[in-house]
C-alpha cells in the first residue's frame, strides 16, 4: 500500500490498477475499471515553479516531460505520446545531459509553469455573497455574525458584492455612497443577462454596442459601472458591515400555513448574470447562504403550501416530485452559464428543512463549488467551515479559480470521463472513449473552482485490441499520461501544472499476479463509491447493492485463490483483502442506503465524495475508529460493535461526523467529576486525548465535521452505532461482552456477508 501513497505524494495520483490490463478484454475482466483519482493542486513539496512557458509537442501539444526521449546532440526530443520528433527552440540550445531544464528531471514528473508577469496583472478574486433572509431572527443573527467575520477575513484586494433575497432579490450597490441602495428583482421571474445589463444601468454613460458579446470591462463596460456592485473589500468594508448589521428578516408576510417565499434560484441566476456581466472569465465565487427551501421562481423545490411535504427519495423514485425536474433543468442551465463564465457557486445550506441541495447539486458540482450542509447557521459546522475558507493557515483551502484540465494519453488509452467537480468542455478528440462516464466526450474540462484537495476521478478505457500485431512491440508496454491543469492561482496569476505518468501494462494469461500487485484497493473503493453514486443518479432502476455485490463477486472470482465450489478454500491476496470490507461498508453507507437520508443530504454526501481524495473517501466509506483506554495507547479498533467497552473512549471519524463515545464507566466517572481532581490527572488526559484528536481532524478538514460527544446508551450514541458492523444484534446468539453493546438491526454482519461472498465467488 505504501508505494501507492508514495506515488500519490509525488504526483497526487492514485490509480485502481497501477499495472494496466493491456487489452480491452483484460480490462473488462478486471471488473474494477481502470481509473485514476488525481488531485491537481495537491501541495507537493519541492515542486518547482518555472517562470517560463512550457515546451509543447508540435503534433499533440503535450508538454516536454521527463519521459521524453532527448537527443542532446541533435537537440531533438521525442514526444512519448505521439512519437513526434521536436526540435528544441534556440533558448534550449545549451541543453545537455548535464544541463537539463527542470522539466526533464526525472523526479519532477509534476511541475508548474507560471505565466510571465507581462501576461497581465494579477486578477483579484471576487466574492459575491448571496444571502437568504427568509429566516427567523435568530438564524439571521447567526448568519450576520458569521458573515461579518468573513468580511473581516477577506483578502484586501478581493472584490466583494452582496445580494440578499427572500421574496425578492436585492442586489446591493455597495459603491453608492449616499444612501444604502439596492436593485430589487422579482423572485418569481427569471432575469436574463441582457436584462441585467439594461436594467442595472450599465450603459447609461455610453451607448450600448449594437452587436457583439457584452461582458466585462474589456468589452465595453466601464470600470466604474462595475465598481458599483463589486468593490475591493478594503473599500467597502464599512458599507458591507452596516448592511449586514441591518440585515433583516424578509418583510413580506408569510401566512401561518405557508412556507416563506424564497427565490433562491432567481437570486443565484441574477448573481451569475451579474458576475457574467462584470467579471467574465476571471475567478469569482458566488457564495450562497440558504436557510430554507426554495419556493419561488424556476428553481423552487416545493410549493408554498405547508401541507405539501418536501420531496423525499421515495417521491423522486416514484416521479411524484413535480418541481424536481424543472428545478434541475434550471440549475443545469445555470451551471452551463457559470462554467461558461468561469465562476463558482458555493452553497451553504443551513436549515432543518431541505433547501434544495439535490437540485442545486449540478450547478455547484460542475462549477467546482464548495458545499456545506448543516441544520443551522449557528452550528459550528457552518461557522467553522466559513471561517476555514477565508482563514489563511496551514490548512487553508488554497482556493483557486478558473481551471482548465486537459489530458494526454498514449494512443491505446481512451478517457471515458471524469467523476468529480468539473464540467466537460466538449472538446472531442481521438482520446475520447465511445462510452462516457460522468463528464465525458472530451479531453478538456473546466474547473471553475478548485482547491488543494479537489480530486478528479478519471475513468479510462483500454482501447487496445487483443491481436498479434499488438503484442511484442518493444517499448510499447508503457502507457503514458499527462495531466495539464491551467488555473488562476490564489495569488491572482495563471499557472499551469503538468503531471506526467507512465504505467506498465500487461496482457494475456499469466498477467493476473502482475495486476494484483498493482491493485490499489483504497483507490478502487473510492472509485467504486463514485461510480455507484453516479449510476444511482443517472440510471433508472439501477440496483446498487446488486451491482456492487456482483462486481465484488466477479472480482473475487477472478483474483481470489480458491478451489472451485469450496468456499472454505477461498483466500484473497493482501492486495485485495480489505476490498470486500470496503464494499460491505459501502453497501451500508449513506451513498448507497439513501432512504435514511433526505435527497439533500444524499446530494451533499455525494458532492463531497466526488471532490475528496482517496484517503478521505475511504473514511467516508469505512469510518476509522480509535480506541482510548487506560490499558493502552490510542489504537485503531475494529469498526465493530464489539469495540464498545464500558471503560473505553472511542473516536469515530466518518468524515462528516466525528463521534467521541464514552463507555458507560467513563461517562460515570466523568459525571462524578474525577477529571477535575488532581489525583486523577490521567483520567483527565484520557478524556482530553480524543477531543484533541477530534479537533485535529476538524482543523484539517473541510467542510468541518460535525462533532458529536456522547455516552454509551445515550441517544447520540446512534451516530456511532450506525456505522459499526452489527456483529452483535438484538437477536444474535452470542450475548455481548460485559460493558459491550448490541445494535438493533436486521442488517447482516460482515461475517455473514463474507460467508456469502466466499460461497458465491467460488461457484
Amino acid at each position, binding site marked *: 500500500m505504501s508505494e501507492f501513497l508514495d506515488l500519490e505524494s509525488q504526483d497526487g495520483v492514485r490509480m485502481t490498477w497501477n499495472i494496466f490490463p493491456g487489452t480491452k478484454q483484460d480490462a473488462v475482466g478486471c471488473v474494477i475499471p481502470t481509473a485514476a483519482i488525481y488531485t491537481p493542486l495537491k501541495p507537493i513539496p519541492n515542486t518547482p515553479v518555472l517562470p517560463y512557458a512550457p515546451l509543447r509537442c508540435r503534433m499533440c501539444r503535450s508538454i516536454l516531460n521527463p519521459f521524453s526521449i532527448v537527443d542532446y546532440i541533435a537537440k531533438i526530443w521525442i514526444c512519448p505520446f505521439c512519437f513526434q520528433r521536436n526540435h528544441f527552440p534556440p533558448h534550449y540550445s545549451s541543453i545537455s545531459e548535464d544541463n537539463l531544464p527542470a522539466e526533464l528531471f526525472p523526479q519532477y514528473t509534476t511541475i508548474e509553469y507560471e505565466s510571465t508577469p507581462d501576461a497581465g496583472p494579477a486578477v483579484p478574486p471576487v466574492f459575491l455573497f448571496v444571502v437568504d433572509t427568509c429566516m427567523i431572527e435568530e438564524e439571521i443573527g447567526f448568519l450576520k455574525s458569521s458573515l461579518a467575520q468573513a468580511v473581516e477575513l477577506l483578502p484586501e484586494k478581493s472584490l466583494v458584492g452582496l445580494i440578499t433575497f427572500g*421574496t*425578492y432579490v*436585492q442586489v446591493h*450597490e455597495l459603491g*453608492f455612497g*449616499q*444612501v*444604502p*441602495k*439596492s*436593485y*430589487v*428583482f*422579482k423572485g418569481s*421571474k427569471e*432575469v436574463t443577462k441582457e*436584462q441585467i445589463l439594461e*436594467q*442595472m*444601468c450599465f450603459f*447609461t*454613460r455610453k451607448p450600448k454596442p449594437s452587436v457583439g458579446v457584452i461582458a466585462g470591462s474589456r468589452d465595453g463596460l466601464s470600470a466604474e459601472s462595475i465598481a458599483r456592485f463589486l468593490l475591493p473589500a478594503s473599500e467597502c468594508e464599512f458599507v458591507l458591515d452596516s448592511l449586514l448589521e*441591518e440585515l433583516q428578516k424578509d*418583510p*413580506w*408576510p408569510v401566512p401561518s400555513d405557508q412556507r416563506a417565499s424564497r427565490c433562491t434560484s432567481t437570486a443565484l441566476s441574477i448573481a451569475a448574470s451579474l458576475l457574467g456581466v462584470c467579471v467574465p472569465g476571471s475567478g469569482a465565487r458566488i457564495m450562497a447562504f440558504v436557510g430554507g427551501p426554495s419556493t419561488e421562481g424556476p428553481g423552487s423545490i416545493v410549493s408554498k403550501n405547508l401541507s405539501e411535504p418536501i420531496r423525499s427519495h421515495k417521491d423522486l423514485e416514484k416521479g411524484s416530485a413535480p418541481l424536481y425536474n424543472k428545478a434541475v433543468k434550471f440549475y443545469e442551465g445555470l451551471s452551463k452559464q457559470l462554467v461558461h463564465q468561469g465562476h463558482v457557486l458555493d452553497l451553504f445550506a443551513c436549515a432543518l428543512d431541505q433547501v434544495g441541495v439535490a437540485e442545486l447539486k449540478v450547478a455547484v458540482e460542475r462549477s467546482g463549488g464548495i458545499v456545506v450542509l448543516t441544520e443551522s447557521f449557528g452550528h459550528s459546522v457552518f461557522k467553522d467551515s466559513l471561517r476555514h475558507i477565508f482563514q489563511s493557515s496551514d490548512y487553508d483551502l488554497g482556493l483557486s479559480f478558473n481551471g482548465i484540465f486537459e489530458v494526454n494519453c498514449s494512443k491505446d488509452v481512451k478517457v471515458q470521463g471524469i467523476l468529480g467537480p468539473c464540467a466537460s468542455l466538449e472538446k472531442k478528440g481521438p482520446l475520447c472513449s465511445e462510452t462516457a462516464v460522468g463528464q465525458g466526450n472530451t479531453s478538456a474540462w473546466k474547473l471553475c473552482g478548485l482547491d488543494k484537495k479537489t480530486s478528479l476521478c478519471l475513468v479510462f478505457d483500454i482501447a487496445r485490441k487483443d491481436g498479434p500485431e499488438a503484442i511484442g512491440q518493444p517499448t510499447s508496454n508503457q502507457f503514458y499520461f499527462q495531466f495539464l491543469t491551467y488555473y488562476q492561482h490564489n495569488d491572482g496569476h495563471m499557472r499551469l501544472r503538468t503531471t506526467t505518468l507512465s504505467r506498465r501494462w500487461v496482457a494475456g494469461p499469466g498477467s493476473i499476479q502482475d495486476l494484483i500487485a498493482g491493485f490499489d484497493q483504497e483507490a478502487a473503493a473510492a472509485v467504486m463509491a463514485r461510480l455507484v453514486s453516479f449510476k444511482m443518479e443517472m440510471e433508472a432502476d439501477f440496483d446498487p447493492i446488486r451491482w456492487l455485490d456482483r462486481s465484488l463477486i466477479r472480482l473475487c472470482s477472478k483474483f481470489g485463490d480458491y478451489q472451485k465450489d469450496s468456499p472454505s478454500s477461498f483466500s484473497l491476496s493482501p492486495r485485495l483483502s480489505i476490498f470486500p470490507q470496503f464494499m460491505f461498508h459501502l453497501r451500508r453507507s449513506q451513498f448507497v442506503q439513501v432512504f435514511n437520508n433526505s435527497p439533500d443530504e444524499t446530494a451533499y454526501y455525494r458532492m463531497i465524495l466526488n471532490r475528496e481524495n482517496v484517503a478521505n473517501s475511504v473514511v467516508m466509506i469505512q469510518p476509522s475508529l480509535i480506541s482510548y483506554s487506560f490499558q493502552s495507547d490510542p489504537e485503531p479498533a475494529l469498526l465493530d460493535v464489539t469495540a464498545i467497552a464500558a471503560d473505553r473512549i472511542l473516536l469515530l471519524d466518518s468524515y462528516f461526523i466525528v463521534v467521541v463515545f464514552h463507555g458507560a464507566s467513563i461517562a460515570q466517572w466523568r459525571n462524578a467529576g474525577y477529571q477535575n481532581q488532581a489525583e486523577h490527572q490521567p483520567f483527565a488526559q484520557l478524556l482530553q486525548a480524543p477531543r484533541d484528536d477530534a479537533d485535529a481532524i476538524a482543523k484539517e478538514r473541510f467542510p468541518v465535521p460535525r462533532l458529536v460527544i456522547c455516552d454509551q446508551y445515550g441517544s447520540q450514541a446512534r451516530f456511532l452505532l450506525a456505522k459499526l458492523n452489527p456483529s452483535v444484534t438484538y437477536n444474535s446468539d452470542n450475548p455481548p461482552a460485559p460493558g459491550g453493546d448490541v445494535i438493533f438491526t436486521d442488517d447482516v454482519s460482515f461475517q455473514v456477508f463474507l460467508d456469502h461472498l466466499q460461497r458465491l465467488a467460488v461457484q
Partner: protein
Amino acid sequence: MASSQPFPSGPPRPRPGFSPNPNPNPNPSAAADAIQNLQIGRPPPPSAVPGVAAAPPFTSPASRPGPPPAATSLSRPGHPPFASRPPPSSAPITSNGPPAFGLGAPRFPPPPPASQQMPPVSGPATIRAASPSAAPPQAQVARSFPGSPPSAHPPSSQPFMGPPPSSQPFMSPQLSSQPLMGPLSSRPFGGPPSSQPFGGPPSSRPFGGPPSSQPFGGPSSQPFGGLPASQPFSGLPASQPFSGLPASQPFSGPPASQPFSGPPASQPYTAPPMPFPGPPTSSSPFGTPSWQSQAQQGVPSMVSMQAPPRMFGMPPHTPGQTMASVPPVMGHSPLAGHQVSTPSKIDPNQIPRPVPSTSVVLFETRQGNQANIPPPATSDFIVKDNGNCSPRLMRCTMNQIPCTGDLLSTSSMPLALMVQPFALPHPSEEPIQVVDFGESGPLRCSRCKGYVNPFMRFVDQGRHFTCNLCGFTNETPRDYYCNLGPDGRRRDADERPELCRGTVEFVATKEYMVRDPMPAVFFFIIDVTMNAIQTGATAAACTAVSQALAELPEGPRTMVGVATFDSSIHFYNLKRASQQPLMLIVPDIQDVYTPLHTDLIVQLTECRQNLEQLLDSIPNMFENNRVTESAFGAAIKAGFLAMKPTGGKLLVFQSVLPSVGIGSLSSREAEGRTNISSGDKEAHKLLQPADKTLKTMAIEFAEYQVCVDIFLTTQTFVDIASISVVPRTTGGQVYYYYPFSAVSDTAKLYNDLRWNISRPQGFEAVMRVRCSQGLQVQEYSGNFCKRIPTDIDLPAIDCDKTIMVTFKHDDKFQEGSECGFQCALLYTTVYGQRRIRIINLSLPCTSMLSNLFRSADLDTQFACFLKQAANGVPTSPLSQVRDQITNLCINILHSYRKYCATVSSSGQLILPEALKLLPLYTLALVKSIGLRNDGRLDDRSYWISHVASLSISLAIPLVYPRMISIHDLASKEEDGSLLSATIPLSSEHINEDGIYLLENGEDGLIYVANMVNSDILQQLFGVSSADGIPTQLVLQQFDNDLSKKLNDVVNEIRRQRCSYLRLRLCRKGDPSGMFFFPYMVEDKAPGGLSYVEFLVHVHRQIQTKMA
C-alpha cells in the same frame, strides 16, 4: 351725477394725467400706424367710412386721452340731442350705405342722416373732443386725410371735447357737425366715393373707426373712470350692443377695423346713453327698430340691471320685457345683411362685454317657495341656503326646466348640471350641517333610494312622505315621525337641516362601507432623469414636497411615501429609525412590483425627519445621473402597487416623455407635424391616447381608490393626450409647467402642490345624481371612473373638480310643478370619516320658451359648451369642432330670434338678455388654445384635460381672460375694485406705454409695451428698461406703492382663482410678446374673425336660417 362730475374733473385729470399729452402725439402717429394696421382689420365698420376718414387718426389719439370723457360728459349734458342722433347714427351707420337705398328706409334712412349727424356729434367728435384742441392739429398732421378728416375731427372733437375745455361745446358741436356733415353727408350717401377720395388706406381708418368705434370703445370708458364707463357700457351694451352692425359690411371693410379702435367711440356712446332715451324716440323715425332696441335696452335694461345686483355690464334680466325690449339687437339692414359688401355699422364699443362686479350680493336660494335665479358664477356672492343648494355646488344651465323634450330641443340649449360638490363656500356662508341618523342611516325613499330632502312632501299627518324624485309614497319611520303644521310642513322642518337645507351631510353607517375608511395616503413620485435633474425640476419637486409636508392633515392617519424614477423605479424605505432611508430599485419596468411589503408608506409622524432629509438629498444623489429614459408608466404602476391596500393620492412629478417600460410612449408630436403638413385629416388622433395601456392601468387604479395627479415640469413634448388619461380616470388632474423654469416655476409648483393636498377634499367617493321623473341622466362628464352606468367612482374629489351631468327627457312635466335634482356623494374625509353629502336643487318647470331664455344661465351653458368642445377635439377635426360650437351659438340665438323676438325685424341681431355674451364667449372659445390650429399638441391636450374638470367660475376666464392695466394701478381706487377695471381683449386697447396683466386663472401674462415709462418699470420690476426684465419672471415686491398694489392685485387674483398664477413676461417686440396676442380674442386673427365680424357672421347665419 357721475357724469357731471366726470366732466369737470374728468377733463383735467384724465387728459393730463393719462398721458393725453404724450399719448395724443405718440398715439396719433404711432397709433395711426400700429393701430390702424391692427385695428383696421377689425373696425371694418363701414360706418366709419363716412365721417371716418377724419376719425381714425383722431380716434386713436382721442380715445386714449382723457378728452373723451370730457367729451362724453359734455356731450351728455349739452348735446343730448346730438348725441342721441349720433348714436342712432352709429346704428344707422351700419346701415349707412344701404340705408341710403331706401330699402332699409326705416332703419337705414335714419342712418344716413344719423351717420352724418352722428359723426359730428357723438362719434368722432366726442372722441376727438379730448384731443380736440391738440388733436385736431395732430389729426390734420397725421395724414393726407387731414383735409377731410381734420375737418371732421376738429368738429367732432370740438363738439365734445371742445366743449369741456373751451366750454364752447355747443359751438364746436355745431361746427363739427357741420363740417362733418359735409364730409359725412357726402360719405353716407356715397360711401364709396368718400372712401375713394381718401384713398384706400386712409378711408379705411377714418370710416370704420370713428363712428362705430367711438361709441363703444372701451378706452373711453377707461378714461372716464370706472363708473362712467360702466354706465355707458351697461346702458349701451345692453341695449345697443349689437345694434349696429350690419355684419356683412364690417367685414368687407378693412377700413372698418379702425373704427373699432373704438376707444374714442366708447366715449361718444357713454354720452349717448344719456341722450338715448330721448333720442331714441326722436330717432325712431330714422331707425326705429334699431334705436328702439337700443333705447329700450339702454334705459330699461340699465334700470333693471341696477335693480338686480348684477355685475355684468349687460343687465341680464330685463324685467318683464322678455323679448322685444330686452333683446340686444344688432341693427341689421336687410340689405346690408344680404349684401356682403355693404359695410357694417357695429359699434365695437357697444357690443356686449362682461363687466365685472365689485359688490357682494346676498343670494337666497329660494324665496316664497320659489327658486331664485342665481347670480353669475363669476360674481361675488354670499349664499343663504333656503332649500336649494348653493349654486356653487350645483347649478343648472337653465333655471326653469322645460316641460317637454321638444321644448328643450326647440330652444337648442343644453340641459345639464354642473356639480362641484366641494366648492369653496364664501367665508360668510354657513357651513354645511352634518346630520347623524344613528345606526339606521339617513332616511331614503324606498323605491328610488333618494335621500330625504326639503322637497319630500310629508302627507297624511306626517305619516307618509312622497318622494320628490320618483313620486313614491313611503311610510315615515316611527322615530322620524312629526306632526305637520298648518302650512302643511312638518313642524320640525326648520330644525332639521335635511328638511330645510339644500345641502347636508349625513354620517354614513356601516352599510356604506366595504371596508374601514381609508387613511389619507400621499405618495410622491419624482422624476430624476438627467433632464429633470439638469433643469432643476427634481430639486423643485423635492423642495415642494418637503415644504408641503407641513400642509398634510395632522394625525396618525396621514401616511406618506416617496419614490423616484428614471429608467427604473427607486423606492425608499423610510421606516428605519434613525437610519438613513434605504433605496430600493425596481429595475423591471415591464412587469413592476413593489420591493417591500411595508415601510414604503409610513405614518408621517414617524418619518417626517427622515423624509425631509431624503428629499433634501435626492437632487444630490442623482446629480450625476445620466439616464435619459423615463419609465413613467412603470413608476405610477409601482406607486399604485404600494398604495393598493389603502388607496390614496399619487402625486407624480414628470419631466420627459415616458420612453421605456410599461405604458411607454413615442414622440408623436414630430409625426404629427409631418402629418399635419401633409394635410392629414386624422391629425386629431394625436390628441387621443396613444394606446389603451394607461387607460387600463387607470381603471385599475380607480378600482383601488388611487388618485393620480401629475405635475409636468417639462421642456419637451410629453404626450399629455396619453398621460392625462390617468388623472382623468382617477379623479386627479394634470399640472403643466411648460417650458419649465426652475427660477420662475418653483414657487408655483410648491403652491400648486400645497393647494392640491390641503384643499378640501374627499377620498374613495361614489357619486350619483338623481332627478325627478320626467328627466333622466344622460351622461356624466369629468374626471372619474365609471364602472356601472348609474354611479361614478371618484378615488378622490376636491373643491376644484366639477362634474357635468347632462339630462334628457323621458317624460313630460306638468307646468307649475318642480323638477328636483339630487346629487349624493359618498366619501371619506381626510380624517377618516365616511360621509354622504346630499346636494338638492329644485327648479320650476315651464312650457314657455321665453321663460327658458329668461332663466338661461349663461355661465353654466358656456361651461357646458366648453366641455363639449373639449370632448370633441380629440375625436373630430378642429374645424368641425369650431363649426359645431359656432352652430350651437347660432342655433340658440336663432331659436330665440324665431320664437321669442317678435318685435324686431330680421335686420337686427337680437340677443336674449341672459345670453347676450354668448357670441363673445363662443368666439373666444373658437380662438382658445384648444381649438386654435396653431397650438402645440401638448398645449391643446393640456387644455382639454384642464377643461374636463374645470369649474364654471374658472371656465369663463379660461376662455375670456381678464385683462387689467397695471402701469396705472397707483391711480386706481383702492376699494378692492382694483380688478374691476377690465379691458376688453382687443389690441386696440393696448397702449404703447402700458403694462398689462392678463390672467385666465392659470397663467398670468404681463405684457410690457415698448414705451413704458422707466420709472414705472423701476417701481414694478426694479429695472429701468423693458429689456432688463428677466424673461423668467419672478414677481417681487418693492418698496413702493405701485409694486405693492401689483402684488396685491396678483395675490387677489390668486385667491380668487385658487391658483398661483404662472406669471410670464411678454415683451413687445420680443418673441415672448407673441404669447400675448392670441389672447386678444376680439381682434381679427389669421385663424378667426374679430368680434364684430363674428357678430355679423352669426347674424347672417341666423338670417339664412330664418329665410
